[in-house]
Structure formats: C-alpha cells, structure tokens
C-alpha cells in the first residue's frame, strides 16, 4: 500500500500515525496486564520484569518509544491543524519539524534505553 499508492507525505503521516496508534493500543493491553500482576502476583511480575530488562526487551522498548514519540508529535500537529486551519499551509513543514524533533530526541533516547543491556555507559553509569 505504502509503495503503490502515491498519496504523498500527508498519506504517509496518516499511515504511520495509525500503525503506531494500533501498536500502542496493543502495548497498553500488555502493560495493564503486567502492572496488574505487580499487585496480584508480585513474584510473577518480577519474573516478567527480567524480560523487559533484557536486550530483546529493551530493543522492543526503544521501538515502543519511537511509536509513542511519533504518535505524540504528529498528534500535536494534527490537533494544531484542526484548531488553526490557517496552519494547513505549512502542514508539510510541520511534519518535517516532527521528524527533526523525533530524531533529535529519539536517537539519544534509544541509546540510553538499550545501553545497559550491552554494558555501554548510560544514565546509571
């Protein structure tokens, strides 16, 4: 769909927003289950936690953070355009601005999340 339909940047912005949104919805189901375990079965929760802290878990969290950050930034752009329609003239520039913030925040963020599992220096030394 993404390759064949020549909808341009606006269509891509929409597709990424929707894919990220569904992914975040799926994670919420998992996240409510795990936090419910913290109260209902603390020992089992602590076991699940070791998966979150492992390398595959951390790569997943970096991807989760990417989905969250894109959905959040593009979501603000959508809201801004909805309530100030005159901004529509700059919608493409706003989308590129989203990507600049996304990479400026996302690359160091992803590094900090994954670093502990690789023994690299991070926030906790």
């Amino acid at each position: 769909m993404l390759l064949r339909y020549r909808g341009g940047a606006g269509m891509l912005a929409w597709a990424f927003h929707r894919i990220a949104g569904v992914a975040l919805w799926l994670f919420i189901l998992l996240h409510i289950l795990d936090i419910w375990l913290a109260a209902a079965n603390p020992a089992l929760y602590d076991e699940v936690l070791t998966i979150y802290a492992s390398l595959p878990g951390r790569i997943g969290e970096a991807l989760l953070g990417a989905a969250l950050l894109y959905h959040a930034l593009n979501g603000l752009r959508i809201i801004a355009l909805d309530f100030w329609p005159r901004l529509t003239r700059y919608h493409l520039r706003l989308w590129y601005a989203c990507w600049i913030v996304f990479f400026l925040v996302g690359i160091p963020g992803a590094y900090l999340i994954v670093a502990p599992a690789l023994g690299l220096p991070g926030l906790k030394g």
Partner: protein
Amino acid sequence: MAVITRAGRGRPRSGGFELAVWYLIRLTGVALFVLALSHFSITHFVSDPAEQTSQWIFDERWGGLLWRTLDWLMLQMVVFHAFLGMRTVLQDYMRGGARTAALMTLYLLGFLVFVMGTVAVMSMPIGLVR
C-alpha cells in the same frame, strides 16, 4: 476563505456523540502528550526497568498518593484515547455484523483494562509486598 483541514478526521458535522468523541480524542491527546511522555521518561530515563521490581513500585513509584492519583488519571485518558481510536480504526475497515461484534468486544476489553488498571493502582496496599 475557509481552509479545509485533512490532517486527521474531519470535524463531524452531525454534532452530538460523534462530535464529543472527536473533541475527546484531541483533549485526551494533549493530556497524554504530557502524561504518557513523562511516564515513559520516568520509567526509562529517570529510573531503569532493571530496578522496577514490585517492591520498587510499592516503595518508590506508588509510595505516595499523588503518584497513584496521577497514574490513575493517565489510565483514564489512555482508556478513552486508545479505545476510541481503535473504534475509529475498526469502523474504517469493518462493516455489518462483524463490525458490531468487534466494537462490542473492544468496549468490553476497554472496560476490563480500566478495571484491572484501577485495581492495580488502588489495591496495592502497604505491606502486600515485603
């Protein structure tokens, strides 16, 4: 000159419930921009998943009423935003009886998520975890 925005879903002209959903998605979206991003930053940059045992949640994360209240507020925003968003997605791709069944399942799941989250944030009493 009226500029028609096509950034997201057009504002429903019918008014009523659909218009309320349209506004709620945006309102909760702004709230979650702050709540969800700060939550992710706290759990990954201020703290680290390796130290977030159930003991840590009880001692630090949910040690005070303020954090539990804020997290419960975030839960309500998330349930609204995520499940109304999924409602839009399902309505875009499904028709007829399958759509009704999928939506009913979605609402049931949303209610379950809200109850489980509420139980978690409210029921973890002092002394449950050693």
